[in-house]
């Protein structure tokens, strides 16, 4: 079984959800993110749309292949700028009910085959420093990334201001990279945005067992 992360343009979201529906996948979780185009004039002028939707869902191996194939075909993932989809093996599931909800059969298998050559780099950083991270990543050969906004809870409990609880703002950056570039990208990020800097980046990479999308190849 796999956890599938699909990154897509807002106007292709409905097509993507349609595919999930047709394949009978577990109801996806959708998050609002933004992509990072290259530092172009279009971007500075603000007329380069960067909104992305990040869709999380789970599927068994056969459906994962089908899902990525359909996305490739119908969302034109092979053309640049149309998004990317990747699957990450799930190791275990809590509870029979959750298992059937996610569409797994519960059969114990051997270690899944990983797709050689690609990895997903995750950076968790303090809000407002995504440019630093992406600049570093680009300098080491990354094509771009997708940013999700979130809130973090530090080691100390959240601050209170009257009845309002204030959390730290965090950003999570997804960068898909070739395995041979991974180390360079990760150390570039650490160099300019590592734990000792304001960005405070925590960087790690996940294995990927299937992937579709042009932007990374």
């Amino acid at each position, binding site marked *: *079984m796999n956890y599938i992360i699909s990154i897509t343009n807002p106007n292709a979201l409905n097509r993507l959800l349609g595919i999930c529906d047709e394949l009978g996948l577990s109801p996806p979780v*959708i*998050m*609002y993110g933004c992509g990072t185009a290259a530092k172009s004039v*279009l*971007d*500075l*002028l*603000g*007329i*380069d*749309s960067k909104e992305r*939707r990040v869709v999380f869902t789970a599927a068994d191996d056969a459906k994962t292949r089908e899902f990525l194939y359909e996305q490739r075909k119908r969302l*034109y993932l092979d*053309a*640049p*700028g*149309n998004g990317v989809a990747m699957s990450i*093996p*799930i*190791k*275990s*599931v*809590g*509870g*029979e*009910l959750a*298992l059937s*909800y996610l569409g*797994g059969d*519960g059969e*114990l*298998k*051997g*270690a*899944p085959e990983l797709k050689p050559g690609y990895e997903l780099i995750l950076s968790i950083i303090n809000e407002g420093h995504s*440019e630093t991270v992406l600049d570093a990543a680009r300098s080491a050969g990354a094509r771009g990334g997708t940013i999700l906004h979130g*809130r973090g*809870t530090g080691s100390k409990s*959240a*601050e209170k*201001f*009257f*009845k*309002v*609880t*204030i*959390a*730290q*703002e965090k950003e999570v950056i997804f960068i898909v990279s070739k395995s041979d570039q991974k180390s360079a990208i990760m150390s570039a990020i650490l160099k300019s945005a590592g734990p000792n800097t304001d960005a405070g980046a925590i960087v790690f990479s996940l294995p990927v067992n299937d992937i579709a999308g042009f932007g990374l190849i």
Partner: protein
Amino acid sequence: MNGGTQIKKDALYKNRTALTAKIKEGFLSVIPIVIIVMVFSLTVVPLSSDLILSFLIGAGLVILGMGLFSLGAEVAMTPIGNRIGTFLTKSKSIILILVVSFGLGFAVTLAEPDLQVLAATTPHIDFTVLLLTVGAGVGIFLVISMLRIITGIRLRWVLLVFYAVIFILAAFTEKNFLGVGFDSGGVTTGPMTVPFILALGVGVSTIRSDSRAESDSFGLIALCSIGPIIAVLLLGMFYKNGAVAGGDALKSWEHTVAIGSSYIKAIPTYIAETSLALSPIAVIFVLFQLFALKLPKRSFLKITLGVLYTFVGLVLFLTGVHVGFASLGEVLGKSVAEGGKVLLFILALLLGWFIVAAEPAVVVLEKQIEDVSSGAIPGKAVKLSLSVAIAAAMGLSVLRVLLGISILWFLVPGYTIALILAFFVPDVYTAIAFDSGGVASGPMTATFMLRFIIGVTQAAGGNILQDAFGMVAMVAMTPLISVQVMGLIYGRVKKKAKVPAIKEPELDQNVIELWIENKSDIDRNSDDERDG
């Protein structure tokens, strides 16, 4: 499906930038109005062709203006508001929060072009007095909404108390001030104030991790619309000046050059108006940038360019609406009212249904709602309920003009229903509903639709001050009900969609391994694994 054409289409698709998307959005929201007006004017309502030509030029400007404006709102106004809001929460200084909120509310409102138009079209109240009163009203209520968020008092109670105050005041105030008072509530929250205050609210709540953060993102506009109403009603009790407003002289053009020159003459007026409207926000942003935010150069440059888009967009939009739409609105209202009541109602309902999409602030609200709720509350549903609301508001306004009865007959039951609903609907929908009341009544309503109703009033021989004014108030009231009803329906659906309850939850706490490192171990271990 033809693969080849699909891929070609897709290549085109990719090249589509945000700007063309925005202009297309503007086009789609304005075109229904154009079609309705064209169909009516070509078939049943005789209008002179110079008016129609000028209307079409206006529509073009409105489309361009809306596109640029909403792009600007997205790259500049929203980030500015967000950042200032976040900064205020982070500062955790009550005094700073209160002082800055009052200053923001006051300055932004004073500069609001809609309010200046309202102040100018109500000659029975002194221009400066009205402006200052309403500005202070908004400032005080922005402070109140911040205090409400900090202290965690539910929005519904605050709304209940202040609307009670409003209706007590309304019972004592002079008749001529009623319509204007309620209108000013809707009007002050115009295209400049709305994106900024909306973003401020989201910014204040964005770094919170408590459960009320989402619903507290909205509701600022709701309270800010109360301030002006109370201010003007109070003014009505102390300020006596009996002049009565008349309709503006109708515009008509002898030839095409005259139309062109009236557009060109209008542009400097709106450049001045828009610069004034933008200046407080721009100044505040620069101050924040210098002393607190300290954004990198590139981000600062990007926001500055966004402010420029907002500026150009708003100038085009206002010019188009005031020259092209306003004069047509009045004539359209007049001649359709002479054409028969059924026709009048049909046109009023149709215009109401489609006009709300052409309000620039509505687009911004929709986007904020989708962003904050990550799409869980679809912007389209909000827009649909707004369409229902504004169509109803137009129908009721026409009815009121024909019957000539007091606006309180509509507002008191309307607000009563809205406030009762607030106790049955999830907080976030109440906040969005009361926000959209202020959002829906923007420049399109204040010029085109108000003029339409003024035209109807003139044809029906009513009192403009008492019958026509108050129409904006109606537009500001009906969304409170329709959006909350939508919330009620959505709440129901959400409950139904819950995962079926587990009969024996304690039996379902096993962790199921899906794979293990060494496949040859499977056979040996499988029995143990299953039992565990």
